[in-house]
Structures are given as C-alpha cells and as structure tokens.
C-alpha cells in the first residue's frame, strides 16, 4: 500500500472508512436591514474520523460561518437555508435545540478564536472547565475537580491546580487559549472545531500551542476542523484543505496538491500572496542560487552607492512609571532598553518582535510622540531633543506614521478629502485649489479613483482605508514613513497589494521605511535590514539575508521556526 505523505513530508495515519462529518451543499443566510445576505452558498465538506481538515479563506469567505453552522451556533439572524449536515451518519441539519445541546461538547467541541473575550471574566477558570464536565455528564463534585486539573495539565498549562482557582484576567493570552482547548476537549468529542485558535497570539506561542494540540488530538483520535486565513499554517497542520471564497468552495483536496498545483485562479492568488509561503519560496530560491521575483526589497548583493542614515537611534531607553495599588508605590516598567540602530536612506528597516517587545514604543519615540527616558534620536544628523517648537513642527513634515488598525486611523467625521488635506492645511501648504490638485495626485498614487474624495471612512474597506492612510502620510512629501504593523490587520490578498504599493512608492519617491511588525514572513518580502527585539532589548541586527540564512541568536531562530509553513517541503513549480 502506498504511504501517503502530508505536506510536511510525514506519513499520514489511516483511519476509519466512513466519514465522520459530511456537509453537502450547505446554504447559510443572514437577514440584514437591506435584505437577505447569502454567507455560504453550496459548501461541501467531508471529514473522516481522526483526520485534520482545514478551511482556508479571507474574511467574508464563509469559513467560520460554515463551521458554526455545523453546531448550530450561528450568530444573530443566521440560518441554514439549504443543504445537509451529517454527523456520524445522522442528519443533524435541523435538530431540535435539546438534541443539539447533547451533541455540543460531548460529540463536537469548539475552540474559539479570541481567548480574552471567550472566557467569562467573572468565573474562575476551573469553574468554567468543570461546567463542561458536568453538562456532558462526565463527572461531578470532587471527581470533577480532579479531572479539571488533569485536563488543564493535559492542555499544557503549568501548575494546573493553582491556576484552576484563578480568573481569566490573571492568565496570559497563551494560557487562556490552553484553557479553551481544555474546555473543548473536556468531554472527549469525536470532532473538534478550532476557529483560528491562535491568530490572536504571538508567533512563538502559536507554534507551541498548535504543536501541542496536534499531538493531543492525534493521541485521542479526535478529528479536527481547522479554520484559518493562513494557507501556510493550514498546509502544515492539515492533510486536506478546503479553500473558500465569498461563501463558496473554490478548491479542495490534499494539501500538497493544492500548494504545488492550485487550479482555481483564487487559490493561485492565495498561494502566490501568502507571506509564509512567499517567504518559504524566497528562501528556497536563494538556496538554489536563483533570484526570486517575489522579493520586494532590494537585494544587498549588488554594490550600492553609500547611503547616509536618515534616522539614527543611540542607546534609546524608555521607562514607564506604573501606578501601583498602594499610593506612592510605583513600579517601573522598562519598555525599551538601550536600543541602537540606523536606517539608511531609501531602504526599509524592519523592527520585529512579539507583544511586549517594545517595538511600537520605539516607533512612537522616533515619531517624537513619546519622550525617551534616555538616549538620542538623530534625524538627518540632527538630535531631536535639541529642536525648538517651530523646528519640531517642521520636523513633523519629514516623518509620518501609518498605523495598524485601519478602522481607527481615519476620523469617521471627516470626508476622505478632508482627511488627506489636513496635513496640508495644518502646515499651510498652498491654497485651496492647489491642495485639491494635490489630493487628487495622492489618490492617484495609491491607486484609488478621485471620486473617493467625497466619501467617508465607514464606506471603505480595511485595505482602502490603509491606502488613504498612506496617501495622508505622503501629503507633505516626507522622507521617512513609520509603518506600525501597517498590514497586520489586512486580508492576505489585500496585504500583498499594500506591500507592493509601499514598495513601488519607495522606488518612485526615494522613501525610507521603518517597518514595525511581528510577522517575519512579511519581513522577508519587504525589508532590507532587520532589528529583532525581545522584552525591550535589541537581540539581533543584520540584513534580511543574514537573519534568514544565518541567525545568530536563539530567539531569532525561534522566531524563524515559528513562521507557519517553515517545515513545508519545497514547492515552486518544479514538482517533479
């Protein structure tokens, strides 16, 4: 018998022959104020016992909706309007509420997405796990307490007995996710639905938790329906992929096949744009000595004219005073500790780190939005702390920010025109006519039609808002733009578009970028040089090539390993 291999090259276990979950032609619709909206249109899905299947898609693809429809947990006005759902041979499409209650938890479990909002803040963790045991008739009383501790430990929570008596806000994000996993698996369901279980967590934590979940489900023989937007992650964890787009399944099949030979144009786009896969391809191209055309950053190979430093940071330190519970007692928190680096003109410097690394604090200091406790920042050779009020005002024209959350960075009351015009108005550039011309020019630069001027932010999508934010940042012809996780909140395809736009603008206008991100895969595509930060300290600083080929620090190596899809086998068109 031929041994089947999954996408990472490991052999796949063989399981039962009857499908555990069979979804056929599922239709789900929501009722909104403007009428019925079809969220899922004819989705097919099959999962065999013990198998891991992943649904991949961007926002609005219907992937989460499909999964929630299986256990009748559609939010708000959602309803299954067509198709069938069969579980263990039984049609569960239109079960009564009471019957559904029995299936949930005991036969199908859920691990939801955001660990903070998915745990009730007023009950202890142990209590919430115990509830799952009691509701499904597994155990009660002190038996249950013992089991709770066992389950939490099994999910990877250290010091489980003490932790069970704590509240969710006392846990870190990773710990909360483990608690949710314990709850999901408490009644040993046959199928576990994992809805983007780690997307709110740091990359290194993500890997550990997913590894753990994988080994746990393999051990228990639990089938897993994995929802994710990251194609690399899906291919790494699942043997069978289902790609959804605008409520329909556009492609499905073995993970290896889809990655190596995607047939549907949408899948092809996804495969081309996913940063984790692109990063992998760039690396493998390098290994074979080929220049990858996916590399957006200029390579360090050819000799370049010596560029001066547009920004130089020396011994930058920031200490925050946190008010303690006792009056007079303050704790100090060192967010940034003795960081030094320089950004060459016309290049992109990435500052990479997980949450709490201090990377955003560094960005805020470079933008002069925060005073450094110690250290100096030089812009174009001038020490920022020596600037007077007027000089500071002039300085602001030369450095501009783009923030992470596209839904918060534009004033909802301002029309797009006013938003982009504001920098010009504040700095008294030109008159009304010339400003309007400039706004048109800027909209054109970010590939948006001029009619967008009259619109308001709430009419635009996330990617469109980021373009407006870019246009606003460019209004005063800055020399440097600080991108603080500017693409992290965007869908994969949109993200790729914005990265290309940023790259084109850099080539056209000679801009320098300080690119703050937690995603090393994106760094591979866009950055010339990299600073790796951990807990406020600069751990490693080198060119992108050096960091990826020959990381010197352990932490950097961990970050690299944590990129989803780093274990995937080489693809790239030569699947011989």
């Amino acid at each position, binding site marked *: 018998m031929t041994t089947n291999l999954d996408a990472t090259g490991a052999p796949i276990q063989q399981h039962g022959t009857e*499908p555990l979950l069979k979804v056929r032609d599922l239709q789900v619709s929501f009722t909104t104020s403007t009428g019925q909206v079809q969220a899922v249109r004819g989705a097919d899905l099959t999962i065999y016992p013990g198998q891991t299947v992943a649904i991949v898609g961007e926002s609005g693809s219907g992937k989460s909706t499909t999964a929630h429809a299986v256990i009748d947990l559609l939010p708000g006005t959602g309803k299954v309007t067509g198709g069938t759902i069969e579980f263990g041979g039984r049609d569960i499409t239109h079960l009564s509420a009471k019957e559904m209650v029995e299936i949930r938890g005991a036969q199908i479990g859920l691990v939801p997405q955001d660990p903070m909002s998915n745990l009730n803040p007023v009950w202890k963790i142990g209590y919430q796990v115990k509830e799952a045991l009691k509701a499904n008739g597994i155990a009660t009383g002190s038996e249950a307490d013992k089991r709770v501790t066992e389950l939490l430990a099994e999910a990877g929570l250290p010091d489980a007995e003490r932790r069970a008596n704590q509240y969710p806000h006392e846990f870190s994000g990773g710990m909360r996710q483990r608690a949710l996993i314990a709850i999901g698996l408490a009644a040993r369901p046959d199928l576990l639905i994992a809805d983007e279980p780690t997307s709110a967590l740091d990359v290194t934590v993500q890997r550990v938790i997913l590894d753990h979940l994988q080994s746990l489900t393999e051990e228990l023989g639990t089938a897993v329906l994995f929802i994710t937007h990251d194609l690399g992650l899906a291919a790494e964890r699942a043997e069978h992929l289902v790609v959804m787009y605008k409520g329909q399944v556009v492609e499905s099949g073995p993970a290896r096949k889809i990655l190596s030979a995607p047939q549907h144009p949408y899948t092809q786009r996804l495969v081309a744009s996913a940063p984790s896969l692109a990063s992998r391809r760039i690396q493998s191209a390098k290994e074979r000595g080929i220049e990858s055309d996916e590399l957006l950053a200029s390579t360090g190979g050819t000799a370049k004219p010596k560029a001066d430093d547009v920004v130089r940071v020396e011994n930058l330190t920031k200490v925050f005073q946190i008010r303690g519970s006792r009056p007079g007692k303050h704790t100090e928190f060192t967010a940034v500790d003795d960081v030094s680096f320089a950004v060459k003109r016309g290049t992109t410097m990435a500052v990479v780190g997980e949450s709490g690394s201090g990377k955003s604090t560094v960005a805020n200091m470079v933008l002069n939005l925060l005073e450094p406790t110690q250290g100096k920042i030089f812009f174009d050779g001038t020490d920022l702390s020596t600037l007077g009020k007027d000089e500071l005002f002039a300085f602001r024209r030369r450095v501009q920010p783009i923030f992470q959350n596209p839904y918060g960075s534009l*004033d909802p009351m301002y029309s797009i025109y006013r938003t982009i015009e504001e920098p010009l108005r504040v700095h008294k550039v030109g008159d009304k006519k010339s400003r309007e011309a400039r706004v048109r020019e800027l909209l054109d630069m970010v590939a948006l039609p001029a*009619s967008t001027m009259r619109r*308001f932010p709430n009419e635009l999508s996330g990617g469109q808002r980021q373009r407006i934010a870019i246009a606003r940042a460019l209004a005063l012809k800055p020399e440097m733009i600080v991108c603080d996780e500017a693409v992290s909140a965007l869908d994969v395809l949109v993200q790729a578009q914005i990265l290309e736009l940023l790259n084109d603008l850099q080539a056209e206008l000679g801009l320098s970028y300080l690119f703050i991100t937690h995603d090393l895969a994106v760094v591979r595509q866009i950055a010339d040089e990299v600073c790796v930060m951990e807990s406020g300290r600069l751990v490693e600083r080198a060119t992108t090539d050096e960091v990826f080929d020959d990381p010197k620090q352990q932490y950097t190596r961990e970050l690299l390993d944590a990129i989803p899809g780093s274990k995937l086998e080489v693809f790239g068109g030569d699947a011989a």
Partner: protein
Amino acid sequence: MREPTTRPDQHHFFADLDETPLLGVDAIDEHAAPASMWQDAWRNLRRRPLFWISAVLIVVVLAVAIAPSLFTSIDPNAKTACDLSHSLEGPSAGHPMGYTFQGCDVYSRVVYGARPSVAVGVLTTIIVVLIGVAVGAFAGFFGGWFDSLLSRVTDIFFAIPFVLAAIVVMSSLKSHRGVITVVIVLGVFGWPQVARITRGAVLGLKNSDFVTASTALGTSRLATLRRHILPNAAAPIIVYATVALGTFIVAEATLSFLGIGLPDSVISWGGDISTAQRNIRTDPMVLFWPAAALAITVLSFIMMGDVVRDALDPKARKR
C-alpha cells in the same frame, strides 16, 4: 512523485470559474452614494416610526410655546380671564376642557403654560451642555491634577441629590423666583452629569489612532481636541441632552407644584396641577389636562432621545 491516494469525497476538486467568478481585490463601488456618519444616522432615523411621532409632537409643543395665541383666542393672563361663576364647570362650546376652581378656562391655561416649561427645559439644557462639555472635555483630555480636581467637584455635586438641592436653593430665593432663576438653579446642579459623559467619551477617543495621527502632524493639543475629539464625542452628548431636556421640564414642574418654582404670576402646568389636586376627588379632569400636556411634552423629548441613541449606535452602523 507518486500521486497520493485520497479518500472518497476528498479528491482534488476545483470549482468552475463561471460559478465562482473572481472580483477585483478591494475594488471601490463608484456608484454608491457617499454617506457620512450623520447621513447614515439620518437614513436609519427616517425609517423609525417613533422618530416621526416624537418629531411631530416636539414641533407641536414648540409651536404652542412660541405662539400660544395661535391656538387660543382667550388670554388667561388678562384680568377678566377668570369668572368665579363658572367654577368647576365641565366642557362647553369654546371651552373644551372646562373650568378651574377659580373659574378660569383650562384649555387656554394649558396652552399658555407651555412656554415657561419649555423655556426652562431648553435654556437649562443649553447651560448644562455648555458648562458640562467644557469641564468634561478639559478634564478628560488634559488629565492630571485638573482631572482629579474636577472629578472631586463633580463627586460633591453628585452627593447632593438634584431635586433636593433645587428645593433647598429655590426655597431660599423666595423673593427672586422666575424662569431665569429656575434655569440657573437647575443648570448649576445639572452640569456634572454632562461633564461625566463628556469626560468618558473624550477618554475613550483620546487614544484613537486618528488622534495620534493628527498629533503626529503637528496639530496643537487644543486644536486636536476641537477638531477631532469633540465632533466624535458629540453623539452621546446629544442623546443625553435630548433626554435631559425632558427631565428638566419635569423638575421645573415639580418645583412649581411644591410652590417654590415659578411664581404664581406665571402660568405653569406644575402650578395648575398643584391647585387642581385640592379638588381631585370631585373634579379630577381639571388635574388631568395639564398633567397630560406635561407628560406628552416630556415624553416627546425623551422618546426622541431614545430613538436618536439607537440610530447613532455604532453597532447598528458597522458595515
């Protein structure tokens, strides 16, 4: 490379491009009409029947308050307005609501009673919003010791119940009573609540990215407060002000009822209710009419506030 064997129903499948056409990534719909938050809210508001009901009522009330002579030919302030021989008579031609104990026409008194009540409501709301927004915005935006001081001051005002304070002060000002006095007293004790709401809204907005972006442009702090924060904080303030207008009218009526609000020389619903309650057992309708007018007026404002809050609710608007 060998083709991996797959299970039934899990072979490589891809959909027909005709059935699953690709849209441009992130394209803009050029044909949709532009819509600011206010336009969106207006569209939402238009569809609600309660909005129209309360809007019509408010317009009627304002019309009666501004031009009472349009609604009745009798002038209740005239010396000859009341004739004891008609005391407590029921409705008759030209006098649809009957007569009071003093023989005055109830209907015209109800009509003329609108102006002082509405005036108190509107003026007090204006004062309360002006003071409260200023205090709350500065406290929330600048923080520090100023915020602590203002919080203590608001706490102090909150510690004294509103109606009680109004009663105490008004009773001390016996000889100076009038619309303006009532407005000032209600205003002095009513601004802390607006300040609290404003402060909360400003605190919530202070750390928004668009505010940071404006600061990064070089906009002064005061200008940022004026241009970005306050317009976005307007929604909860507007909602509260609309409801507060109603509650101020109730407060004034309560004071007049107790005899320490508007003086007897001013015709007011509260005063008429106070007089009418002495005869409630025999002639309840004399109390009913001014009470109904009062209730409907107040209801129209707080209903409007309710409906506007629902329309401005960000959860309803999110796309």
